């Protein structure tokens, strides 16, 4: 290892970055663009869900129920005069659910029988349908409570749930999505920054020129790694700043823990990019592989949006080879729950092993040899 040669290589890499600004765009513009768009765009909190309300026979009892629906921030009720027209609206995707109070609703309520409230949801988006169903249950329970109070009787529900939600009491989905999003974005930047650079040198033939010089393979790789690491960390800091100041996600844990874990993750992501690049030696293939092994797994298999514990066991096993999985777990914990050491240490260890693995394999594979 010769420091002077390494410095020259790093200098060369920086010059190249400055000349083709796409690396700067990848590291700074892309995270900003994605955070803005996705941070504002992605939400699982249903608000103002359009619901068709059909009341066959309006009475004080039915208007009390519909009033509860109108007051709820979750619903935007629209009155339909027949169930057929409401069903047509459901088919047409104009409403997400139908609430049907049949003609005998009030009579049954007043006579002490149990009236059926018909709810029809569009099940195509099953997750949304479940959430809407949960909100409707809330409206129904409020109505039961109110009816009991009005009648001067105690509520007829034996056991009631008292829930305490830790770490995210308002259940804002943005607070859990934005930290995970940082991991998705960092996976992209890390792999994209390096995936193409070595492949480009092979494709353009400049790798042969480098090999003819006295630099060692380790120096070449370090000369690639260090500049992109610095740029990548810059992008990371920018993302954290946006998360905290723009999206108002609380950062409960310590910033330094976040910084150390991020650099471990970035090393793993860059290592993966370098490995792709040295395997592919061709920008088209390197690009294909980079998209396939980074963005989609980081999006779907990391726990960013789909809960890993709900996946079938073999798939859960596969998620262990996705570096973003460990980083998402660290980010969600450090942002929302604080420095929970068992989680931070185990996941950091996994990231460290992955970084060593990817960088080590790349070094082993990269010989000064022309095939």
């Amino acid at each position, binding site marked *: 290892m010769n420091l002077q040669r390494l410095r020259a290589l790093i200098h060369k890499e920086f010059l190249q970055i400055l000349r*083709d600004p796409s690396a700067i*765009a*990848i590291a700074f513009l*892309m995270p900003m663009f994605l955070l803005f*768009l*996705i941070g*504002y*765009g*992605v*939400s*699982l*909190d249903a608000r103002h869900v359009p619901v068709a309300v059909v009341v066959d026979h309006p009475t004080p009892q039915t208007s009390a129920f519909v009033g509860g629906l109108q007051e709820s921030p979750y619903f935007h009720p629209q009155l339909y005069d027949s169930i057929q027209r409401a069903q047509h609206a459901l088919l047409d*995707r104009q409403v997400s659910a139908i609430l049907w109070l049949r003609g005998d609703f009030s009579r049954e*309520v007043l006579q*002490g*029988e*149990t*009236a059926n*409230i*018909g709810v*029809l*949801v569009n*099940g195509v988006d*099953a*997750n949304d*349908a479940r959430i809407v169903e*949960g909100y409707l*249950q809330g409206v129904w329970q409020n*109505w*039961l409570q109110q009816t009991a109070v009005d009648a001067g009787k105690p509520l*007829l*529900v*034996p*056991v009631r*749930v008292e*829930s*305490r939600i830790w770490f*995210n009491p308002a*259940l*804002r989905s943005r607070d*859990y999505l934005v930290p995970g999003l940082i991991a998705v974005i960092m996976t*992209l930047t890390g792999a994209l920054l390096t995936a193409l650079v070595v492949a480009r040198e092979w494709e353009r033939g400049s790798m042969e020129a480098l090999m003819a010089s006295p630099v060692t393979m380790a120096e070449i790789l370090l000369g690639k790694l260090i500049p992109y690491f610095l740029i990548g960390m810059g992008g990371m800091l920018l993302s954290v700043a946006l998360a905290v100041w723009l999206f108002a996600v609380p950062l409960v844990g310590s910033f330094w823990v976040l910084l150390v874990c991020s650099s471990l993750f970035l090393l793993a992501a860059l290592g993966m990019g370098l490995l792709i690049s040295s395997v592919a030696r*061709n920008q*088209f*293939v390197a690009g*294909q592989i980079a998209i*396939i092994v980074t*963005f*989609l797994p980081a999006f779907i298999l990391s726990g960013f*949006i*789909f*809960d890993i*514990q*709900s*996946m079938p066991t073999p798939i859960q096993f*596969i998620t262990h080879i996705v570096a973003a999985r460990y980083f998402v777990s660290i980010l969600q*914990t450090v942002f929302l*729950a604080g420095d929970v050491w*068992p*989680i931070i240490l185990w996941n950091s260890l996994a990231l460290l092993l992955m970084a060593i693995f990817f960088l080590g394999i790349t070094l082993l594979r990269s010989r000064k040899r022309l095939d």
Partner: protein
Amino acid sequence: MLARIWALVIKEFLAILRDKKSRLVLIGPPLIQLLVFGYAATFDLNHIPYAVYNQDAGFASRELLGDFQGSRAFRQVAVLHSAGQIAPLIEQGKALLVLQIGPNFTADLLRHQQAPLQVIIDGRNSNTATLALNYVNSVLLSFDNRWAATQQWGRSPAQLVVRAWFNPNLLSRWFIVPGIVALLTLVVTLLVAGLSVAREREQGTFDQLLVTPLTPGEILLGKALPGIIIGALEAVFISLAVVFWFHVPLLGSIPALALGLLLFLLAAVGIGLMISSLSLTQQQGLLGVFLFLVPAVILSGFATPIANMPALVQDLTYLNPMRYFLVIVRGVFLQGDNISLLWNQYWPLALIALASMTAASWLFRHRMH
């Protein structure tokens, strides 16, 4: 003219398929991803890990906890003996929720007094927490109904009877897996189209192409066809897998799906070629594909509903071809839609295809370095 286009198409296929690795990345990964994502991308909760802190010795709490143990949605991971054990368990994610039952639970219930079931839940993943609370509520609801009936609590004045259309068991897999058809088709098509012109520009052969007798329209067709053919093959294959491997019902008309696919492919290829002709190097082309692909996937309604997005972002999604194709795919698969029900999705796709193709062919000529 046809012969010239045909020659260009063959040349394009050779450029993509000549390399063994490049052949592999077009065929292998989409298949693996379909299988992995088809199983992984689910919002349904199975085996929610929970712990129990029961201070009550009576039979009511035992009965209630028995309901949780009997439910497939829940998996008991620990029994706690002090309140201090709750925090570490939740913090470290070993249990998603803790059910806490106070000492007077059975006694209160037997005196016809309402008793609370305390649920402490990890809110880090807010969607999981919301759904898990819904599951707890539904277990509790059936317990309450049973208890009210057997212990003479009187009848509830009304109950909700929920039915779901198109997906009676509310399996989120039925929602996500048809979406994967759109997702993987978009990825493959964009990559093939997005790098095709950029590769020639980087190697300097695009200028040669421009001075041949080929007209810009012919170049456009020659560059577009490989992406469309590869994308169509992948989409057909994935759709077959969705029906025969994942057993998602295909209720609607196949021509409606085919027409949607064709328009979607045209739009995707058009955007890919537009990106490609704007870039001078493959790196720029790839970056452009990414910058389009990532927001296009995330803001398409693939995983999170468009209706939950802010108004401004919702307006932006009208430019996203995947948005329309997802409605088509899900409509045809689950709702049994036919062509006449989907016009509102077809014409924006056609418009996007037309605009992007026109822009791409203009850029062929006018962006020279």
